[in-house]
Every structure is written in structure tokens, then in C-alpha cells.
């Protein structure tokens, strides 16, 4: 028992506090966004969020108290296999909702896959000697398999945040730094080329010529539409660009102090589409009602989580721990960054929830479990500090 209390005492309280605060913000804004919805179920989603968070807290504590090393050593492989199996299963027996087949029973396998991939990569690449081109290829396979399955749902967002997390782990583990650098450069180049092509195509006045160009672009219709909106936000404000335009109006009209909680006109009048205001665009509701000050508050809380996590990673003298922490933190960061940036118009629109705040049970529990694992790194860091970083340093 004393051991248990000692473990709890070693948890990073700043991270827990920031996380709970963000979840509380989530409850508040799911309530606010839900208050304009017509059905009781939707209006009460904030309660579901709070209840999920309560369950999540148990999961969080459980993972924090569980030795992460055992988890990575023993559970990473079966969890990865299981989640891959579920990703395959969801394609066949999943439930269709909002234009994608993402649900298996009551949860989204793709959310679990995020954590599974991170754990498995950490497990694989923490072992010494696993570097070079072949292991890089192995890393690509670990990323690519689930990513392709997720893309098939289709869920571009999950694939997009998974890649940086795994790449960060590979970089940290120095699997094949040169190769990864080249890959990142190639991805950036490809993205640039893609945007340039769409840009060229949109500037074509001849529709046939445009069709011809698009035949060589490996994207779906709606993805091209989103890129078009990203490149030319003002051309189609009532059509494809509607969500972005309305999100920007919400955020911008919030001003410095915001309209006040529940008073956001964009939300109340339904210009910010109610179907997305609790999920992917909840940031717009927050920004409208709490203004720039509230946004800074939220960013500060996220920064608190990331900073505590990085401190834990830096203090950890175990490669497994560091890799897991790096993967989890990068995942949180990418979620936050992509979600906010797409609401502002910095990146094309991708369906990604805002961590801890957007409604979504699976993602919340997975995130809390992930942060629990990071806490576990802090709790179970009983390796003797060996001077500096390690023999290989």
C-alpha cells in the first residue's frame, strides 16, 4: 500500500492538472455546442464526455501505476496485432457514420490503433542495433499497414497524425536518420507539388484541361475540394468553403474577450454547422465564446501537458520510455496543431478531433491511457541516473 502511494506521489501533477482542466473545458464546450441541438441525446453529450472522462481517469491511473516496461515488452505486440485485426474487421462489419466506416460496436479501432502503433514502434526500435535501411523499411511497414487500413475507412486525419508520431520515434531511435530526413523532404516536396498541381488546375479556364490534370492527382473528389478551399478560400464560401469560412468568422468575431459562454452567435444561429461544432470544429466554438484569451488559456494547458511530458522523456533513462513518450506527445501535438490550424485555414480541412475537448469517447479514453503510460514512465523511472545520458551518447 505504501508502495502504491509512493508511486502516486511520483506522478507528474502538472500534467494531470492540465489534462483535467482541458477535459473540463471540453465538457463546458460540448455542453455549449450541444445546447442548440434538437434532441435530448445530443444536448446531453457533455454528460457522456464527463462520464467517459471518469472512466478514463481510472484507465489513466491504472496505466500510470502499471509498469510501462512490462506493457511495452509484453503487450505491445499482441495489442498491435489485435488493433490491425480490428482495422481489417471494421472495413467489413463496421458501422457507417458521417461518410466513413469507422465504428466497431461502440468504439473506433483507428483511435486504438494510434496508441498501438506507437507502443509497437517503441517496442521494436528500443532494442539495440535496430538501425539501418532494413529497420527503416520495417518502421515504414509498421506505420504503413495500419495507415493504409485507416485510409481505406476513409480517415485521412488519423493517417496524417500517425505518420509524424512514428517518424519522431524512428528519428529519436536513430533508425536511419539520413533516410528519414530524405523521406520527410520527399513528403514535403510531394505535398508542395500536389498543391501546385491543384493550383495550376484551378487556374485553368478550360474545364477539359482541368479534368486532364486531375486525372494524374491521386486524391478523392472531396479531398481535392478541400485543397481547393485551402488554396482559394474566397471562391466557394457557400459550398465547399462554407465550413472553413464559418469557422473563421466564429473565431474572428470572438475577438479578444469572446462573446461569453453559450452566447456565440455563429453557434446559436447555426452558421457554424451544428453537426461538426461538437467534434472537429469545437475549437471555433471555444474561440468565439472565450475569445483570444480563452484560446491562449487552452494553448497554455496543452503546452503544460507537452512540457511535462517532455520533461518526463528527458529524465527517463530508458529508451522504451523515451520513445513511447515522444510518440504520445507528438500524437497529441499533431492533433492539436492540425485541428486548430485547419479551423484557422493554415492547413487544408481534415477531420481530426481536438484532444480532450472534442466529443468522442474512444479517442478520449485512448488519450488518457496514453498520458497514463507517460505518467508511468515518470512513476517507474527507477533506473539509476548514470551520469549523463548513456553509454552510446
Amino acid at each position, binding site marked *: 500500500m505504501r508502495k502504491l502511494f509512493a508511486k502516486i506521489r511520483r506522478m507528474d501533477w502538472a500534467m494531470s492538472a492540465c489534462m483535467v482542466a482541458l477535459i473540463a473545458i471540453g465538457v463546458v464546450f460540448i455542453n455549449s455546442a450541444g445546447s*442548440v441541438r*434538437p*434532441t435530448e441525446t445530443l444536448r446531453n453529450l457533455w454528460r457522456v464526455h464527463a462520464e467517459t472522462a471518469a472512466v478514463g481517469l481510472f484507465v489513466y491511473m491504472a496505466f500510470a501505476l502499471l509498469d510501462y516496461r512490462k506493457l511495452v515488452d509484453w503487450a505491445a505486440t499482441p495489442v498491435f496485432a489485435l488493433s490491425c485485426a480490428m482495422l481489417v474487421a471494421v472495413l467489413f462489419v463496421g458501422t457507417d457514420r458521417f461518410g466513413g466506416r469507422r465504428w466497431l460496436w461502440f468504439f473506433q479501432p483507428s483511435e486504438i490503433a494510434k496508441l498501438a502503433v506507437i507502443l509497437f514502434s517503441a517496442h521494436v*526500435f*528500443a532494442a539495440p542495433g535496430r*538501425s539501418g535501411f532494413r529497420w527503416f523499411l520495417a518502421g515504414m511497414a509498421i506505420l504503413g499497414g495500419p495507415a493504409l487500413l485507416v485510409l481505406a475507412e476513409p480517415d485521412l486525419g488519423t493517417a496524417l497524425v500517425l505518420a509524424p508520431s512514428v517518424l*519522431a520515434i524512428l*528519428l*529519436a*531511435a*536513430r533508425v536511419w536518420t539520413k533516410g528519414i530526413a530524405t523521406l520527410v523532404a520527399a513528403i514535403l516536396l510531394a505535398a508542395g507539388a500536389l498543391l501546385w498541381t491543384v493550383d495550376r488546375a484551378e487556374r485553368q479556364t478550360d474545364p477539359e484541361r482541368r479534368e486532364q490534370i486531375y486525372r494524374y492527382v491521386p486524391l478523392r473528389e472531396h479531398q481535392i475540394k478541400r485543397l481547393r478551399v485551402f488554396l482559394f478560400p474566397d471562391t466557394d464560401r457557400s459550398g465547399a468553403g462554407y465550413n472553413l469560412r464559418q469557422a*473563421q*468568422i466564429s*473565431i*474572428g*468575431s*470572438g*475577438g*479578444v474577450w469572446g*462573446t*461569453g459562454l*453559450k*452566447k456565440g*452567435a*455563429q453557434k*446559436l*444561429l*447555426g*452558421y457554424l*454547422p451544428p453537426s461538426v461544432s461538437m467534434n472537429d470544429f469545437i475549437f471555433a466554438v471555444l*474561440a468565439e465564446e472565450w*475569445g*483570444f484569451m480563452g*484560446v*491562449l488559456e487552452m*494553448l497554455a494547458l*496543452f*503546452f503544460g501537458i*507537452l*512540457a511535462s511530458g*517532455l520533461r518526463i*522523456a*528527458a529524465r527517463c533513462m530508458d*529508451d522504451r520510455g*523515451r*520513445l513511447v513518450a*515522444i510518440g504520445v*506527445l*507528438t500524437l497529441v*501535438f499533431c492533433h492539436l*496543431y492540425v485541428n*486548430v*490550424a485547419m479551423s*484557422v485555414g*493554415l492547413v487544408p480541412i481534415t477531420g481530426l478531433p481536438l484532444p480532450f475537448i472534442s466529443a468522442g469517447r474512444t479517442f478520449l479514453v485512448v488519450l488518457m491511457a496514453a498520458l497514463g503510460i507517460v505518467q508511468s514512465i515518470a512513476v517507474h523511472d527507477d533506473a539509476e541516473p548514470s551520469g549523463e*545520458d*548513456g*553509454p*552510446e*551518447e
Partner: protein
Amino acid sequence: MKTSRWFVAALGAVYLLGFLVLGSALFRLQCVDTGEFRAGLKQQATRRIRVPGLRGRILDRNGETLATCRPSHCIQCNIEEFQKRGAASNTVAAIEDAVDRLAAAIGLARPASLTRARIERHLEKRSAMPLTLWEDVDDAAFARFAENSCDFPGFEDVTIPERVYPRGQLAAHVLGFTGRGRPDDADSAHFFEPDMRGRSGVESYYNRFLVGVAGERKVRVDARGFRPTRQREAMMEADLDADVAPSTGLDLRLTIDAGLQAVLEEQLAGATGAGVVLDPRDGAVLALASAPAFDPNDCVPRIAAETYAALTNAPAKRLQNRAISESYAPGSTFKPLTALAALACGWLPDDEYDCKGVYVLGDLRLHCWDRWGHGPINIRTALQKSCNTFFCNLGTAVGTNAVIGAARAFGLGSRTGIDLGGETAGIVPDNEWKRSAYNERWYPGDTCQMSIGQGMLLVTPLQMAVVAAALANGGRVFTPYLFARQDDAPPPEPVRTVPYAAADIELVREGMRDVVERGTGRRILTRWEDPAPGTSKRRRFNLKVSCAGKTGTAEIGTGATRRKNTWVIAFAPYESPTVAMAMLVERGESGGSTVAPRVHAVLAHVFGEEETTASASSGSALERAD
């Protein structure tokens, strides 16, 4: 160890960079450009509704109200409170259901106009506006609604102005009536509240002055174009731009004298015809009536199809303003103009013509109304006795062009320019006109017919009133007008002065005085009252002032359709006339018997009448005539 703290630190730097990018983008949106986005929100969530101004009143010359607005209670439905999920038909059903329950509770029949299609159209096209259910509900139903309104959220009463004509039929053709309509300037707003719009009469002619300046009300709308519900509206801060209050329209003061108008209409009651009373000094219309008339209150707020059909049905054609929109042969009332034309051409006042009762011109045999003939008479006596043969001869003697010239000089054949719509010009026929209309040349017989106001010549009662006014004031032709000028405004100039010598005009005027004193129009000046029971003496009443006039009886058609339109033109007092008038009665007996007593009554209203003895009256009249 494979991993290093440096990598962790570098990762932290990357995160920090990301936060800085987000922070600066948000700073730009929320702190720098916030005004722009607020404007965007306001623009997409605001609808401008045109609010009409209160329509101005119409007054008579003494300030009596002829048209004004009264409050009318309406019950309307705020459709946004009944929005249901799913298909629009759910909302329609909810509205219909609620309306039915409300109708049962306040004891009104469900409005017939409230069809499913109308609700659907309203939801689609006018979603930011309330749906009007009952218009102009009576006080009892309105009270029941007020009692029950707590149980029926989403319904609301509003009071809107409704046009009312307190004097009913009085001056109906002058006033006209209003309808509901889309205003001309409604396009600048998203929605408009129905405005009153003049459909005829001065309501239409002076619509622009009466309507006032529309204001603008601003309402918020949600993404579906509906107003937010009361509950939701309460959650938002009011940041709409200020409304623009409408301003009331101008009051229109007419030259009409309501008392005189009432007398004129009373005299025309039961007949089909028209009468116009002008002030010969400036052309102001003191009274203008057409019979049969209508009650403009039946035509507001909008004229029902069956009402419209009933009012436009022949032969009554109640909506038709016979004073300006229909033209008739003037008959003998034209003779003063023929006389002037002849005098100008050198016919002397003492030149005589021997009336033998019939005028023969080639195949044409034109009978004088006196079958035995008037014998040798001069021009003044011919006017007094309205001798047809004399004027046929006169016209033929001076020629077609002189007669046509006289008609045109007095404004016949062209619109007078009165401030009313629908005026007709009438016809002053000439050679070219006859060629184009009948493909026939002009025969001397046509001149003959025209000289006595028959044939193809057609005039409106208003034109004849202008002729009477011009004869009264010494030859000045005014544009008749209804819009009373300001007291300090300069008096209107005549459109033209007829090109006839003052002495000639005076001679014709004297002839017209003879008409009322001992000629065909004696009943213009004098009223005989049937003897009271037990006495045998007929009492007679003369106007208190001297007057002059001319009767006319125009025969139209032949055989079964043969009928007479009967006329009088008159002015008084003879020396310095302040009243000139023309009256027409369709299918009368003769001008002297059908119309003259009516004209007497109108003039008696203005100048009064006094009982006289036969000798004294005619004696004094003769003295003055000499």
C-alpha cells in the same frame, strides 16, 4: 542509450514553434481582423425588412378628412417557434395543427387563405417574416386571443394601419382606393411588409406623396433563414444595426368641398351620369362626381375578385369615372362655341336667320326641336331658344375649320390635364380623323351636325366644365386641379386664352343668361314647388345670384337603342363667376327638364335661393338683361 536528451529538447523546440505559428495566426484573426469577421457575421445574419410609413390623409379644402388610416388588429404566427426536424412538411404540419387549435380557442374560422401551399411558400421565401393568419379581427375575437395568448406561444398580435374612407361613397371617384402591393423600392430590402398602394383616383395619382418614406427594420436570421426563437434570441447580445424609422406620408389637401360634393352626388343619385363643379377663377375642382358610385371601403385592403367584377359590370360600371373617362356628344351645350366661331368670322349680333323648323342640306333634313320653327331670330335669341336650324346654318356659313378651331380653343379633343389617371381626350373630328376612322371624306352635313354638338364630336363632362369656366371668366382655359395649392403659392396661369373678342364672349354670355331666365334652362335659375295641398299657387324659388347656362340634349342611336344624353353647363354669379359647372345625365328626357333642376340644387347650395313672385322675378331679370 540510443535516444538523447538533445532530441527531446529539439522536439520541444518544434512544438514551441508550432504554438507560435498557431498563436500568431489566432492573434491576427481575433485581435487584428476581428472587425472584418464581425462584419461578415452581421452581414450573413441580418435581414433588412422594409417598413412602410403611415399613409397620409386626404382632406377636403376645409380640412375635413376624406381618407385616413385606422388600426387593424392582425394575428400572426412566428413560424420559427414551430420548426420541426426533418422535412419541411413536419414544420408545416406543426403550424397547421397549432393554427387549428388557436382557431378553436378564439372562435375564429381557420383563414381560408391559409393553405398548405401558402405555408410552404412562406417557409421557403419569407422565412424571416411572421405568417399573417387573420387580418382585421373584430374586438371580441381579439380579446379572446389576448386572454389565451399565454397558452399559445408563437402567436402574436400586431396592429397595422388600414385605409378607411370615413365618408363612404363621398368623392369615391376622386379619391380612388388603395390596394396592397409590392412597393417600387422594395428591392433594396430582403423582405417587405405589404404597403398600401393607390389603385385609382388621387390615391394613385399622388401615391408618392401619400406613402411617405419607408423605414427599415433589421432582424437576425439563422443559417436556415429563420429568425432565432425567442429563447435563443435572448441568449445573444443585441448587436444589430439600428432600425430606420419610417416617416409618415404627406397629408393631401384637395380643392374638393365635401359639402358641395355631397350635394352634387345627391343630385346624381339614382341616375347614370357625372357632374363637375369648377372654380372658374383658377380651375380648382370644387366637386367631381360620377354616378353610380361605389364605396371605396369595399375595396380595401385589397379588392376581391367578385367585388371587382361587380363594380366593373356593364351597364353600371361603378368604378368608371364618367366625368373624365367617358366621352359623350355635348349636344346643344356646344352651341356657344359655334356662336363664338361665327362672331369671330364676321357674323353680326343682329344678323338674323329665319328658322322654319327644318334645315335642309342636300339629302339631310335636320329638324329643329320646335317643329313650327322659331321664325327670324338673331344669335342671342337662337342661344336662348337653342335653335338647331340657326346653328346648322351658322356652322355651314362660317365653315368647318372655324367650328373645329373653337372646339380646340376651349380644350376639347385633348386631355384637360387634371391630376387624375384615366382621363380620355374625347374627339374633335376633322377631315383627316374621319378619313382614318371611317375612311370617308368630310361632308358639309358633318359640319352641320358638329355645330349643334352632335355627330362624331365627343367630350367629357370635365371638358364641358372647363368650357363653362372659360365662358364664365372671359375666355381663360385653366387646367382643372384637385391638389389644393398652398395659400401663398402664386395662382395658376391659364393654359391658354381663347382667341375671341371680349365683346363676342360677352354676347354669348348674355345669350346664356337668357337661357336661364326665359329660355330652355329656366329651371337652372328657378325651382317651382308643387302647390301645397289646399292652395293652387305654385311657389317659385330663384337663386340669390344671377347665373347663366346652356342646356343640351344629345340624341344617340336609332330605333330601339335611341336615347338621349342630357346636359347642362352653367356658371354663377353672372357678373363675377365663382362657380362653373357641367352635368350630364345619361338617358334623360331633356337638358332643361332632367338636368337643370339638379344643377339648380347644386348652385342653391352654394349661393342660396329665395322665394320670389313670378312678375318680380322675371321683371328684374329682364331689367338686368337689358
